[in-house]
């Protein structure tokens, strides 16, 4: 019922930003949440605004917000495709099959699906190497925790999220072998109340650092209130929890969106897979909190950023074992993109099982 209503609503909230011109390319976005979430959707919307500013009058943009990840998404995507959009960005993992379904019906419309892995002639995929940021925050958390217990709030068991947990844990355990992470799956990307409950539950169980892979800043706020530390998600959340926020992993979509829109304007768009990180600037760390972090730790983190950029450090360096104790990445090697893209297992040392 809620989803139906949200979808009905989302059709009312389609916002056409600028007036149509004959040669203008129309570019559409499907958002999982509201642009005001100050997290995932907010950053995609910032990317859209960046693209508009970069390309000016040669494009016009439209977005539909709060589109649930089910059959309703097909209707939302089809609505954009049928109303003359040339390029459509679908910005959540579980829009994957829905995007392909509509792409088959509209071979002339170009699609860009975020964080997915299925492509077609008119469907590209793109994602950011968020896990590189998770390596940095894992390193910081491993050094900063006093209780050796870190609370980790997550949304859905998909490769992107599990990759993040693994990258975080590997980096944390490297500097602090006693570290334990407690994981709560919320099964929603966005529910501030529930995210706050999860954060409070983890703090109550002894976690002194809160990490999140959900979209609101409620966990960081809960950490601030309880006097523990936290990392932000997707955008810089320092304003909401200045005494808890150590840094955030930021998603920077603007330059990529502008490049793809330009390709459609020029007629050079082709289907491809893009996966970029620190090096290309698709992932950035928010300014490190100098009030909370010792200076040498900030320097270490910055050096790690540089090392990841020029390839001397990788988030998944062997030897890496899975929970069953099997060697999955050999010593001296790093996990390849294929393994990372389909990562559905925890590495050795993480308690619990990946939910099915």
């Amino acid at each position: 019922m809620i989803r139906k209503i949200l979808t009905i609503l989302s059709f009312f909230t389609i916002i056409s930003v600028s007036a149509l011109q004959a040669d203008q390319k129309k570019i559409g976005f499907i958002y999982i949440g509201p642009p005001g979430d100050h997290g995932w959707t907010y950053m995609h919307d910032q990317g859209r605004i960046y693209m508009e500013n970069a390309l000016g009058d040669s494009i016009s943009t439209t977005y539909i917000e709060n589109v649930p990840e089910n059959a309703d998404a097909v209707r939302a995507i089809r609505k954009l495709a049928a109303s003359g959009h040339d390029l459509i960005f679908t910005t959540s993992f579980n829009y994957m099959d829905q995007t392909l379904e509509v792409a088959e019906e509209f071979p002339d419309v170009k699609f860009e699906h975020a964080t997915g892995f299925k492509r077609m002639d008119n469907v590209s995929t793109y994602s950011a190497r968020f896990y590189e940021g998770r390596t940095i925050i894992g390193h910081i958390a491993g050094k900063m925790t006093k209780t050796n217990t870190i609370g980790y709030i997550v949304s859905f068991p998909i490769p992107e999220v599990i990759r993040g947990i693994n990258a975080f844990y590997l980096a944390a355990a490297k500097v602090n072998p006693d570290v334990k992470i407690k994981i709560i799956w919320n099964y929603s990307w966005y529910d501030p109340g529930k995210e706050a409950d999860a954060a409070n539950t983890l703090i109550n169980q002894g976690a002194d650092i809160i990490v999140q892979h959900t979209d609101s800043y409620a966990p960081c706020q809960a950490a601030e209130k309880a006097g523990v530390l936290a990392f932000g998600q997707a955008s810089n959340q320092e304003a909401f929890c200045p005494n808890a926020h150590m840094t955030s992993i930021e998603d920077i979509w603007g330059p990529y969106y502008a490049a793809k829109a330009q390709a459609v304007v020029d007629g050079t768009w082709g289907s491809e897979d893009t996966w970029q990180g620190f090096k290309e600037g698709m992932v950035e760390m928010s300014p490190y909190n100098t009030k909370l972090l010792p200076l040498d730790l900030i320097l270490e983190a910055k050096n790690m950023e540089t090392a990841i950029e020029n390839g001397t450090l990788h988030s998944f360096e062997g030897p890496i074992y899975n929970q069953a104790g099997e060697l999955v990445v050999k010593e001296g090697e790093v996990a390849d993109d294929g393994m990372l893209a389909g990562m559905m297992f925890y590495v050795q040392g993480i308690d619990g099982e990946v939910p099915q």
Partner: protein
Amino acid sequence: MNIELVIGIFNIVLISTTPLVFAGIGELVTEKSGVLNLGLEGLMLVGAVTGFITLVLTGNYFYSLFFSIISGVILSGIFAFLVLNLMTNQIATGLALTIFGIGLSAMLGKKFSGTPIEGLNPYYFIVISFLLVFMASYFLSKTKPGLIVRAVGENHNSAYALGYNVIKTRYMTIIFGGVMSSLAGFYISICYAPMWQEGMTAGRGWIALALVVFATWKPWRLLVGAYIFGGVAIMQMNLQAIGVKLPGQFFNMMPYLATIIVLVFISSNKLRLKLSAPASLNIPFEKNQ
């Protein structure tokens, strides 16, 4: 298990369940008078955003609470006018109110989304929520106006024939329900998760509606039901954090599932349903028939 951990869990359950109690008790009284208001989610969101905006602009919690309540009075007043005077379909009007509330709150809150505020201590409201359940229970079973509300809800024609003002009674209960929903919204955006973000009630209005049925229209059972729903949600988080593997999706649908089970249960016994469900629920009242 140490005592601090238990107290901590108890605390989180109290904080997270209170909005369900507020919205649920309001809807219970509304439904007891024979009106089904499906607009809770919309009322909560508008209450949440009005309270938040007022707090940002004035910095005063009292004004914030006041305007949040006023928003509930206005919106539920409009709903009451539509369903009572114009005799529109209650289900359709309630759904329209929810959709309107979601959109209106998003529009009003656009500029304020992401403004940091200082949250209010939730414990006062937790105490108030218990008092309200007690008062609603006393009102409906022990006072004359409460009995009138129930008479109107059971059979509005008889109540009218006895000289009771059906329309006025229902106006009162609808507005009470609206105020309670906006209070729930205020609590969410000012105490529970002090922020404003679009759609931040995340379906709690629907859970409150389910709760009224689950409680078979009894205030004390509503309180117990709310704490069962809230308690289970927090317990599963605790078990997850300890490392017990649980089907999280199942817990998300549990409130609805439990309500369906209760519905099946009470439908199987006609007398049970008659004892608690208002017989005139969702039936429009025409004066001159």
